[in-house]
């Protein structure tokens, strides 16, 4: 990593008076894998389209490789896109689709042949060269779309939910392949996904978005362990979010009990949100600081999801140790498992 490849500052975009992106600040380093993560309609595709050059911002600047992008039409940008809806050319076969960008670059025929063959191998579509696009399955089309973009070896690759149509196994394989490709080719990726697990496993940096606003930028570990607000905590993994009051540094009250914690720098008696991850809570049978009754239990494969009612509030706990509905239990956790956040308005 190192130098900045893309710098986005103060980017704002409206459609028909509705602000879809609000004052976006973001930079992307060379050879960085950045994931945009957020719910449907939060502006992920719009942000990609602005970088690719298909939309123009109302305010703000995007620089790419030291140049202000606004001056450059899409075809002059060393950026390629894997479109959310593939956008494969129906009048061209698989080979011709993938070769399209290279032909535009006037690459010699033999070289095109070599590149297309090797990228087809990468996306596991050897032997599909002559196939009509319309006869491909959704997953195959998606892989052609990836191949068509990757084969150009751009400096920046924009991928709009490129693995959405694939089954779990192929999806995991492609995640691995894409990650490898990004490392090997030294390309920066901006990867859009709904899938938080995908975001956490693949990225160097995760950008959490909601409602056109960046909620948090950080490494997957930061995002997971130190969510900055209620939205991020909720969106990334399952969370218990509890109202609390900060009494002084390292001392927080919730559920009517004082707890030691590792957070500091809040006002005295400031209202805060507390996040505790379901896997960080341990259940014990004897009475403790927080007591409740098991309300439901579901087997989730590796662990049980146990819902415990405490003062009419649900707590989600992940545990490998089953309990019975109706069991009286107490909740235990360590000071470092208590994440204190500034109270969100929502």
């Amino acid at each position, binding site marked *: 990593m190192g130098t900045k490849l893309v710098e986005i500052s103060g980017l704002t975009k409206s459609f028909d008076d509705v602000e879809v992106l609000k004052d976006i600040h973001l930079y992307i380093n060379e050879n960085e894998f950045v994931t945009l993560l957020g719910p449907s309609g939060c502006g992920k595709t719009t942000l990609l389209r602005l970088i*690719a*050059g*298909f939309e123009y911002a109302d305010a703000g600047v995007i620089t790419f490789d030291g140049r202000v992008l606004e001056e450059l039409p*899409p075809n002059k940008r060393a950026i390629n896109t894997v479109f959310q809806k593939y*956008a494969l050319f*129906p009048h061209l076969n698989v080979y011709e689709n993938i070769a399209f960008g290279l032909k535009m*670059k006037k690459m010699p025929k033999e070289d095109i042949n070599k590149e297309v063959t090797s990228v087809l191998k990468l996306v596991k579509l050897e032997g599909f060269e002559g196939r009509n696009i319309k006869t491909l399955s959704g997953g195959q089309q998606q892989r052609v779309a990836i191949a068509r973009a990757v084969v150009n070896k751009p400096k920046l690759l924009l991928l709009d939910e490129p693995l959405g149509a694939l089954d779990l196994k192929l999806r995991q394989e492609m995640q691995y392949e894409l990650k490898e490709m990004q490392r090997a080719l030294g390309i920066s990726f901006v990867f859009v996904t709904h899938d938080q697990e995908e975001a956490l496993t693949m990225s160097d940096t995760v950008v959490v978005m909601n409602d056109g606003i960046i909620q948090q930028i950080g490494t997957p570990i930061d995002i997971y362990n130190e969510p900055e607000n209620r939205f991020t905590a909720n969106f990334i993994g399952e969370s218990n979010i509890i109202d609390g009051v900060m009494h002084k540094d390292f001392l927080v009250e919730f559920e009517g009990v004082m707890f030691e914690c590792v957070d500091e720098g809040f006002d005295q008696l400031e209202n805060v949100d507390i996040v505790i991850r379901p896997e960080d809570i341990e259940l014990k049978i004897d009475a403790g600081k927080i007591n409740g009754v098991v309300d439901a239990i579901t087997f989730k494969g590796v662990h049980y999801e146990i819902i415990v009612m405490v003062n009419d509030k649900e707590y989600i706990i992940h545990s490998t140790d089953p309990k019975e509905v109706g069991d009286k239990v107490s909740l235990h956790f360590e000071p470092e498992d208590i994440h204190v956040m500034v109270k969100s308005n929502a």
Partner: protein
Amino acid sequence: MRRLRIITLPYLVWMVVLVLVPTLLILLLSVTNLDIYNIGPFSFVTEGFEELTKPLVITAMKNSVRLSLLATLICFLIGYPTAYFLANLKTSKKTMLITLFILPVWSNMLLRIIAWETLFFPNSILNMFGISLNLIGTDVAILIGMTSMYLPFMTLPLYSVLEKMDHSLIEASKDLGASNMQTFLKVTLPLSLSGVVSGVIMTLLPSMTAFALPERLSGGKTLLIGNIIEDYFMKTSNINGGAMISIALMVVIIVLFMVVVHFDKEGETLI
């Protein structure tokens, strides 16, 4: 399958009664001595073929092919940008503009031809503006006439394919480094080919068979094949010769269509 047959029955009846039977009749007339005065027993004759070698007929056929192809080309050159422009309009005015575009088709064609005719004479209403055209009898007059008559038939099929075209394909093309021109040549045009073929056929067919239009606008100077056939049937009552020339015209049109359809790999056009 059975259901389909019942639904297509009216169309089949229509085709047989109004297309197949008359075509066979023409075919019969072209090689027999049947005519208005002889509808009884007949014998096969070969005089019809001699008509095809007459210089007048050959010239008229050449004129028809040349002017029809030219008119089709002009319609394409005007119609494609128009259709492209209309299809890419973002406004709600789209429907209205297209209606305006088709509106002339709703008025009587002969009337519109006569309107052009009066404008093309040296003495016309245009004299008011100090303009005196003297176009009657020129190719220009016929081409203007044909273009104005058949342009909507070229534009509409083009519009409908361009309108349906997925805009993201154009973005994909630019994303992959194609300029506007390359995008047009490699993506837009190939994807609208079925519309081009429909448009060409819809323009070529009426141009090739036109007879009222050249009659009014040529002032008798440029004969098209439609005029010749009309003369044979209506003026000289040479039924056999007229039928033979009609068959020859049909063959020429079919050959032209086959050339056109050859470019339409997907076979998504009207025929």
